[in-house]
């Protein structure tokens, strides 16, 4: 007997929806299009490109939409990037509600390393209608994760555990329907809106659960749950690392071609290794977020932005700040990001507000608003604050939450406009205390043109932090700057018991001054350098040997 030909995804989806509808005995059930993992691993761990995954999900979404599904459920996902592709496909190709649940381990991470906070922040900001967990574990094991997720989103939560953990010898799941329902009840305290069962559960499990939930004894407990909501946390993230906005978070500024010949060359040559190395350096130096600017005349900025974002996030787990004035480049970056990003920037100019804010809203990015408009940079703090308020209102009007607007009060070079330093500081204080917004500030600019720049930069930075700056954009490779931030974190109480400060400075003392390379390697041959793993010296000697060889050849030709 020959095997039947494999049905297309479209036929399978249509048949599935039809079968589910046929089971409705007049109770008015909703039928969901169920989208699971594609079975291929996405970049960077695997080879499936994000864009290809999007196309595959798009095909499924359109089939489900056309077959009359009532909503879309994306489930059993371990890779946040894959979820994003599916969510975008769902929202861009249908108007159906979108629910997403991911699979986690008891450790609080998915198999691919996604954290609960990253999941909560990213999926809420992408605009799903409900989110939560399915599969992976039993109800008891998932409860702590639900508790954690509640801190990161106000959206309705979903919980579909397995019937406990399977017995390896038999493959059978351990919980009875009654045990399962019993273990799930505490989840109601967290404000779970949707409950169900995954592997090992049967219709009996759902029936028993339904009966327990309908019991009058429960409604009192549910009412109490709403009043006990833990305070919600906020921030930006990669898939595996969250920068919580509850203290000073350093944004590294070095991925930027302005005034950097070598960086510009790297952009023209598409030398991603060089750019990634700059990112790694900043991560090692203590940056919490990386600004990414690849704007250079003559290159394809949107394509380069997407490529750079992907290259960075393959190796560095810091959240990213997409820095561009080109809306296409911003969108390319926001699409490629795995996690939740910041867009740098929007300004008070009408065109900027109209083109850039909607992108931030769509992709759930936070946005940096610059206090300038068509008339340039105002010279008083009041006028800058007024622009800040305008940017905030424009963002609120299109449905962005207030906390997603970050304000940059602008740093002017003190040697050119000396009185502006004080205006910036006053503006920062006002924006923070009166408007209640987070503030961003690039501080390096303050000292341009003066000798011993570091002194001015550090003094200005410290004053700005004291005025309420919490997202400084700096060069993390400057020890003096990072030292000042480390000190501030002690004085503000953020660095409990000065632990990080002490560690920073005691480990610095412990490292002896490195022996200058030249002393250690004089007299070594190229072979010796290779065998000893002296990278810098090997490179130098190789280049010299090649130069010598070229010279010899030229001489022989003469």
């Amino acid at each position, binding site marked *: 007997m020959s095997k039947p030909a494999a049905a297309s995804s479209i036929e399978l989806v249509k048949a599935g929806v039809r079968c589910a509808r046929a089971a409705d005995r007049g109770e008015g059930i909703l039928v969901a299009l169920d989208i699971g*993992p594609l*079975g*291929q*691993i996405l970049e*960077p*761990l*695997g*080879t499936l490109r994000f864009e290809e995954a999007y196309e595959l999900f798009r095909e499924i979404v359109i089939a489900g939409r056309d077959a009359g599904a009532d909503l879309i459920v994306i489930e*059993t996902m*371990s890779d946040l990037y894959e979820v994003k592709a599916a969510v975008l496909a769902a929202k861009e190709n249908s108007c159906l509600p979108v629910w997403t649940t991911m*699979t986690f*381990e008891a*450790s609080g991470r*998915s*198999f*691919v*390393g996604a954290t609960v906070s990253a999941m909560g922040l990213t999926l809420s900001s992408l605009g799903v209608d409900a989110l939560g967990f399915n*599969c992976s574990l039993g109800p008891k094991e998932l409860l702590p994760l639900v508790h954690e997720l509640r801190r990161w989103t106000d959206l309705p939560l979903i919980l579909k555990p397995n019937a406990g*953990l399977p017995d*390896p*010898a*038999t*493959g059978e799941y351990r919980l009875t329907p009654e045990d399962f329902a019993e273990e799930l009840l505490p989840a109601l305290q967290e404000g779970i809106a949707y409950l169900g069962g995954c*592997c090992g559960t049967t219709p009996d499990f759902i029936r028993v659960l339904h009966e327990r939930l309908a019991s009058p004894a429960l409604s009192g407990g549910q009412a109490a749950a709403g009043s006990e909501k833990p305070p919600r946390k906020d921030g930006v993230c990669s898939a*595996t690392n969250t920068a919580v906005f509850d203290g000073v978070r350093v944004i590294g500024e070095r991925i930027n071609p302005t005034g950097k010949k070598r960086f510009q060359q790297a952009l023209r040559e598409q030398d991603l*290794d060089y750019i*990634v*190395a700059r990112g*790694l350096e900043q991560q090692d130096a203590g940056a919490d977020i990386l600004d990414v600017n690849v704007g250079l005349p003559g290159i394809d900025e949107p394509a380069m932005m997407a490529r750079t974002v992907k290259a960075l996030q*393959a*190796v*560095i*787990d810091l959240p990213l700040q997409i820095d561009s004035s080109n809306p296409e480049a911003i969108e390319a970056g926001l699409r490629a990001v795995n996690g939740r990003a910041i867009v740098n920037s929007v300004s008070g100019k009408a065109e900027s507000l109209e083109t850039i804010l909607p992108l931030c809203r769509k992709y759930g990015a936070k946005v940096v608003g610059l206090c300038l408009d068509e008339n340039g940079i105002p010279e008083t703090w009041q006028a800058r604050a007024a622009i800040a308020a305008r940017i905030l209102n424009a963002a609120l009007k299109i449905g962005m939450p207030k906390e997603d607007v970050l304000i940059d009060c602008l740093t002017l070079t003190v040697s050119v406009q000396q009185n502006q330093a004080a205006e910036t500081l006053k503006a920062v204080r006002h924006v923070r205390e009166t408007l209640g917004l987070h503030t961003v500030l690039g501080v390096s600019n303050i000292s341009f043109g003066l000798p011993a720049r570091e002194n001015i930069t550090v003094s200005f930075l410290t004053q700005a932090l004291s005025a309420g700056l919490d997202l400084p954009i700096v060069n993390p490779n400057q020890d003096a700057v990072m030292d000042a931030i480390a000190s501030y974190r002690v004085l503000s109480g953020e660095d409990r018991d000065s632990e990080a400060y002490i560690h920073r400075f005691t480990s610095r003392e412990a490292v002896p001054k490195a022996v200058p390379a030249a002393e250690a390697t004089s007299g070594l041959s190229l072979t010796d350098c290779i065998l*000893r*793993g002296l*990278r810098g010296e090997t490179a130098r000697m190789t280049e010299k040997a090649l130069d010598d060889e070229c010279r010899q050849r030229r001489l022989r030709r003469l």
Partner: protein
Amino acid sequence: MADAKLTGISRKETLQYLGWLGSPIPDELEDEISRCESRILETARPRAVWRLFDLLPDGSLAGTQFRPDGQDVPALLKDCSQVILMAVTLGSETERLLRTAQARSMGEAVILDAAAGAAVENVCDNLCRDLEAQFSPRFLTDRFSPGYGDFPFSQQRAFFDLLDITRRIGVSLTDSGLMLPQKSVTALMGLADTPQEHRHRGCASCRLFETCSFRKEGKHCGAV
């Protein structure tokens, strides 16, 4: 999912994966290898999954469509009435560590890779020891992976289906047969009522590892 444990990394195995043939090792390199082994021990989050199947007379696993091809597996399982399928991984954290190392220093990346290879063998060894204790007084055979001997690599897919590996421990199989994360192992072992012969598991477990004249020429004796 079973309890997977990483309890240490055999220096000999790390060296074998590095292709070491017995030359003297400089102190700095020895230190770097130690550092890399520590990084793997800190970073790895091993996971494992296993299932027990009855073995049918025709060599297939009861209740499945899976029958290991070739002669080597049937020979291994000749005294066995049951077979255990297992899968082990160090996890995506280690995969990320290896990838990041490639961006920083290829030399370090090579050593980390070798140490990770030794680490996953340690996790497998621990699992086998636990299973031996659990099924005592019965005896386990050596473990045997798809790709060894004439056990076709293509039958790896059966492990993924029968153990639900992707959902249980987060390892995936690409179309070309590569497991991701790469530091992952699938294997089968037989359960018998009589003690089973254990063969050498590679050069690292041989007492002549450091002095073997075959190794010095890049060869081996054929007992592996």
